[in-house]
């Protein structure tokens, strides 16, 4: 057998699966706010993987294969959440974390920034990068609601906007509003965490 074959298992056994749980859980909690739901989705993933172990051919790494299953679990969860929570209609509805208040504070009536984005010391160098990612990870966990889901699908799962709209039943303009709110909220949170760290 060649060395490259030995470095990647082409056979995945049932005993191997629980070892992947921590990595899967970490991936899920980036994108699903409720810890219990994240655990359920990971559990579903491992059960589904167990049932289709024979189908794993080793074309990708086990981790990639499992994350693929988990992605579909998360998307299904998002679809369920979307069906249950109607889309916001001009200021009412889905505003679990007071987006409206934040947007009011960030922008003046004429549309200009009322509090401008501060200077961030750029995270160059791997040590600062890790610090930045830690702040970002914490802030991602706080992104709730439909805007959080849309952001995760776009920026973490790297789906195309067209696909996201189709999966969640959104119009292009719904999508833009949700993405924009998510980016504003996330940027605001990261700024608080990052600039505090630097001082």
């Amino acid at each position: 057998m060649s060395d490259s074959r030995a470095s990647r298992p082409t056979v995945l056994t049932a005993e191997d699966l629980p070892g992947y749980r921590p990595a899967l859980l970490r991936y899920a909690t980036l994108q699903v706010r409720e810890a219990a739901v994240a655990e359920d989705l990971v559990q579903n993933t491992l059960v589904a993987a167990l049932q289709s172990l024979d189908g794993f051919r080793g074309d990708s790494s086990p981790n990639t294969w499992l994350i693929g299953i988990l992605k579909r679990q998360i998307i299904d969860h998002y679809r369920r959440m979307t069906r249950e929570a109607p889309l916001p209609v001009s200021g009412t509805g889905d505003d679990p974390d007071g987006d409206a208040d934040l947007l009011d504070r960030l922008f003046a009536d004429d549309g200009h920034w009322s509090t401008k984005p501060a200077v961030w010391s750029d995270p160059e160098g791997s040590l600062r990068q890790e610090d930045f990612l830690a702040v970002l990870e914490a802030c991602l966990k706080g992104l709730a609601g439909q805007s959080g889901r849309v952001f995760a699908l776009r920026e973490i799962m790297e789906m195309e906007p067209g696909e996201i709209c189709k999966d969640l039943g959104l119009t292009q303009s719904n999508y833009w509003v949700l993405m924009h709110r998510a980016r504003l909220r996330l940027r605001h949170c990261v700024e608080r965490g990052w600039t505090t760290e630097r001082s």
Partner: protein
Amino acid sequence: MDARLSVGERLRVRVHLAICGACRRFARQVQLLRWGARELGRKGTDKMPKVPDT
């Protein structure tokens, strides 16, 4: 970031960014957030537990 702009839209964005430092900074920071989110997502696929030799 999300869709192709028309030529007119692109021009308007460029003009605005030329004069609005706050928006330039916002755009840079949003790109940083995009990079970070992708990194966090991909980290999940790199982390492999030690699989025992069979």
